[in-house]
């Protein structure tokens, strides 16, 4: 993971590098973060942070990540890729209720009274959850007083511009440039 901090306040840059490193390594998405870039200019004042991820999971249909098997009790879902297990279980709970969805084994879920047809077209959106985690992480890193914020979101990257004053056009351009630069890489 590469963290780059720029800005005129050298000691501030070093501290924010440490803060970002610690918070990212403690987060549950640390392995998915590829690069973090910070531009801190407290004199202006603005703070831009851009986090790029790698290996973002795209939207998946349940039938793509599991084997569905009709049984007397209901539909048996055998998970092929364990990384999706928690998301899938949450999705099934959300759709059919906790009482009808039973995780009998680590990779086996039985949906009582539910046919496989109802399940196969369900979609998981891990991207959304991931984006939420990144935004939470960014909120923890940026200085608390900078409450006027604008974010730029694309598939594998979230950039946020924050200040305590009204956002100036030139800052927005800078944030946008950082966002697009990172995207090219």
């Amino acid at each position, binding site marked *: 993971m590469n963290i780059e901090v720029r800005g005129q306040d050298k000691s501030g840059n070093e501290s924010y590098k440490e803060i970002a490193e610690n918070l990212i390594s403690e987060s549950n998405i640390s392995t998915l973060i590829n690069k973090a870039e910070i531009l801190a200019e407290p004199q202006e004042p603005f703070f831009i942070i851009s986090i790029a991820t790698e290996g973002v999971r795209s939207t998946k249909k349940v039938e793509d990540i599991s084997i569905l098997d009709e049984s007397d009790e209901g539909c048996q879902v055998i998970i092929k890729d364990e990384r999706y297990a928690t998301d899938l279980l949450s999705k099934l709970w959300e759709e059919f209720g906790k009482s009808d969805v039973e995780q009998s084994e680590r990779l086996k879920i039985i949906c009582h009274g539910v046919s496989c047809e109802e399940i196969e077209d369900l979609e998981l959106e891990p991207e959304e959850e991931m984006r939420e985690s990144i935004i939470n992480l960014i909120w923890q890193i940026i200085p608390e007083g900078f409450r006027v914020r604008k974010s730029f979101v694309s598939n594998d990257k979230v950039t946020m511009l924050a200040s*305590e004053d009204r956002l100036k056009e030139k800052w927005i351009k800078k944030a946008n440039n950082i966002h697009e630069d990172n995207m090219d890489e």
Partner: protein
Amino acid sequence: MYRFYNYEGGIYKSNVIEEKIEDLGGYILRKEKHSRELNLLFAVPEEDIDVIKEISDEIKGEIKKRDLIGTEIAVVSPSISRHHLPHPVCDIAERLRREGASTSIISTARGVGRRISQITREEKIMIEEYDAGVFIFGEFEDCILDYKKDILKEIKVPKIVVGGPQIKNLESADTYIGDVGRKTKRMRKTREQRKLDEITNALSECISKKREEIREDPLSVSPIEVKRIVEESGIHEKSDSHSPILLHLDGLRIKLPYDEYKQEVSEIDVYGKKLGEIAELRKSQRETDDIVVKIHTESYLEQVKETKLKVS
């Protein structure tokens, strides 16, 4: 004048020390036994400590002077969010407690940011109830030098400020200590532990100076004696707190609601005078509405006496 000390040593024959402290007119403020080890926080008149040290040497104990015993310190953070809590606020408060101080953590409502950072009048008054304040600032030099220092301007108690950048002299602060800004982890590293020591030493120095000032213009009665008298009255038993009376440099905090107990407390007899006559009783800004007792100096009481004589 009373000075505060800490005895660490074995339990064997420690009762000799305890008896001696009492014989010398001293006070045992806290006594903690851990297996065969004893930790004693006590106060004795400064000139008598050598007698205690002699006994301590005989029983292979150790006596250290602790300036922070008998003080209540405010550790002030800019907010209660995860950006500033629990670290480094709790690490600093914990270290000060180990040195014998009572600490409270105060988070200002609008202390974050630079231009927008501010402190309310109530918050200032609340901080001034304490003997000193340790203020935690952020990481950017520009913010601290141009904006945050204004928060400190009107606060009259000694102020130790900690923050990220290295600043030689921060206007309005008694001492500034760098490299302690936002922390995301506990301050466990040797470098960080040294910083905590630095904070404690700076604060002890401020407190010593304050004690010297009090010594030059002495209080009419020592707070520790007032504490004993209030405890003898039994009023503190009505408080739910495990430490109902806290010592300050120039008074006490009695953890009883001001409106309900003000009269009763001010009537307590202190060497022939009412407590209300030799001290000012204030209502704390804290939600608990504690009674803050500020003992008048001898010179002030003399002045009041003279004025009364002239009028009559």
